[in-house]
């Protein structure tokens, strides 16, 4: 069969169902090669710039170390030894890991409960809660009522309503409504919430601390955790959990010893995605930190000094920021695709 094929046929027709025609294969590899360049060139340029000094950049462009220019470790030495890079770096590590772990714990607890236990939240109580919240804020801000009094009155009114109005009202929100509410919080742009959060931490004297960033990032990333993990939990069979409950295990114990281990790979994917988001976050860190709790993205953007951007120093920072995440992600990369896929298919 292959004997009688013309040159054109040989180029453009596949030899078997599994294989591609040679021409198509060449085009495929060419396109993949081009995209590899698109990905690699910026990274390469940052990497070699971190080994240049001011002169190398000013007289450039130089492309190849040892041939075009002599690589120098000045910028590395300056950023790692003289400049305080370690502080922000540790802040970033603590904040990213801490907020990711917390978001994963709180989020998966909530997601599990929403998948397995039926909720009925009285619509009337939600409305009363919101009205009381607005009333408290208005009375404190406009009329200068001391906030402990306002909160105490509101809590008392709420409990009163719980036993009177709450008993009679039938209309209620179900699990999917609660889920939708939690997930929809992600739509809110952080810029809308950041000012009040700033004032809140200022009053609590927690501004410019790692704790403030950890708890804020937890709140911001919580919706994604719930969105992704609810599908993992929905996908595991009920039998194991049921038999454990008949044996007398509490719900919390079932969650930690049976449900969580079953969705391990999904949790890994979620962990990595949230970690990347927390590691790279810029806007909230810009508002909520100053000197003590400054994180890496803020430090990177601060390199744009009056003498003009210090490209070599900046490149060092970018390289040390990317390196650990790239290594972790390369190791766990297969989990990410699978984890996100489950979330996206059923979400």
């Amino acid at each position, binding site marked *: 069969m292959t004997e009688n094929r013309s040159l054109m046929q040989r180029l453009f027709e596949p030899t078997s169902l599994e294989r591609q025609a040679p021409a198509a294969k060449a085009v495929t590899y060419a396109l993949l090669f081009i995209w590899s360049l698109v990905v690699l060139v910026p990274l390469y340029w940052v990497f070699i710039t971190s080994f240049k000094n001011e002169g190398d*950049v000013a007289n450039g462009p130089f492309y190849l170390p040892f041939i075009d220019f002599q690589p120098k470790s000045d910028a590395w030495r300056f950023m790692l030894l003289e400049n305080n890079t370690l502080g922000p770096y540790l802040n970033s590590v603590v904040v990213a890991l801490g907020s990711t772990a917390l978001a994963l714990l709180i989020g998966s607890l*909530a997601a599990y409960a929403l998948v397995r236990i039926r909720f009925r939240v009285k619509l009337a109580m939600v409305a009363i809660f919101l009205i009381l919240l607005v009333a408290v804020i208005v009375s404190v801000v406009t009329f200068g009522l001391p906030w402990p009094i306002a909160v105490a009155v509101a809590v008392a009114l709420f409990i009163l309503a719980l036993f009177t109005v709450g008993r009679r009202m039938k209309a209620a929100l179900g699990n999917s409504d609660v889920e939708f509410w939690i997930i929809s919080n992600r739509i809110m*742009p952080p810029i809308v919430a950041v000012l009040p959060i700033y004032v809140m931490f200022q009053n609590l004297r927690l501004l410019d601390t790692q704790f403030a960033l950890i708890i804020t990032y937890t709140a911001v990333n919580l919706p994604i955790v719930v969105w992704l993990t609810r599908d993992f939990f929905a996908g595991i069979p009920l039998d194991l959990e049921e038999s454990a409950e008949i044996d007398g295990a509490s719900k*919390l114990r079932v969650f930690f010893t049976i449900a969580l281990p079953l969705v391990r790979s999904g949790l890994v994917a979620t962990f990595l995605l949230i970690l990347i988001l927390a590691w790279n976050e810029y806007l909230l860190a810009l508002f909520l930190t100053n000197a003590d709790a400054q994180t890496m993205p803020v430090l990177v953007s601060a390199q744009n000094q009056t003498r003009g951007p210090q490209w070599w120093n900046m490149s060092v920072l970018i390289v040390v920021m990317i390196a650990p995440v790239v290594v972790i992600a*390369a190791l766990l990369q297969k989990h990410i695709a699978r984890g996100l896929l489950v979330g*996206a298919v059923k979400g």
Partner: protein
Amino acid sequence: MTVAAASVVDSTPRPGLAERFDRHAGRFMVLPAVIVLLCFAIFPLIISAYLSLSRFALAPGGFTLKFVGLLNFRKLLTGSQQYHLLGKFMPFSPFAWALVTVTALVILYVLGRYLFSGRATVFGTIGRLITAALLMAIALLFAATTFSGGVPGTMVTTLIYVIAGVSAQFLLGLGIALLCAQAIRGRNFFRVLFFVPLMVTPVGIAYTFRMLADMQKGPFAPIVQAFHVGEWSWATEAWSARLMVMVGDTWQWTPFMFIVLLAAIENQPRDQVEAARIDGANGLQIFRDITWPAIAPVAATIVLIRLIEAFKIIDLPNVLTGGGPGLATESMTLHSFIAWRTQDLGGSAAVGYMLLFVSTIVCVSFFNFVVRPARRLES
């Protein structure tokens, strides 16, 4: 399961503390999440709403807040800040008229078809009317600014980033995923390599692209100078500056689309693809009839995720161009940030709320009218 739990509880005459806790375990499990979201989403949202309705001023020993009603919003939509948010309007060009007419006709057709389909509900109609109103407003805004030679404000700029950026990321991600899904060598290598840009901090990307786009000292300087355009700078022209922001954004987020779409394509029914091949279907037919229906729900969902995030863009324009030249690359989040820096807290909150309205309506509409039908397509 609830039945089983209840029977355990019933068999003991007086439930102990641990069991009483367990009976309400569900509430305790959701409670932390609800508290965190109330403190860091709902509470700030209400405070911001209050701020957006008042004027903030520094006073000796603190600050004063004066309730001014909708003044901040009126200033943004029709007053002194209209130029900043919405842009400078010009009389419609023929092209703008065409855009508005086509949009109006499409909206009327879709709405009419829904109303006469016999499945119309009150809530469905209200939702569709809100979506239609926002679409029409966006079309009018584009028509009056970019399509008629006016100056786009931060809202149009944000929408350009969202629409053009997300489309580019989706199409590139899909294309590369389709290439990678073929029987090629080194698939895992490409998969890891193409994933890397997602992990670079957006601030870092902004600086990296400023280095790359340097017309004198950047790596492409010799090529640029060979064409004798070395004097020209992308940062001084509105569209080239906007393009740079979108290039950086696309470089970062295409990997996200790519990685999920690749997993979805690899998940498609193999036997159907092979059967189609044997029957002599070409690549395009296989994509249209088998691959696309299989990946459509995933595709719709990740586009939604990206839409949600794209509205919040600030790092790239802030570092890359500082919002300039003029207002050309300023996103709404950056607009709000700049207003905050100039102590205009009410204006800042009002811009934030405008962004919240637009992005909520767009994202919820997208969920209802694209993601849901796409999921039904699969089942």
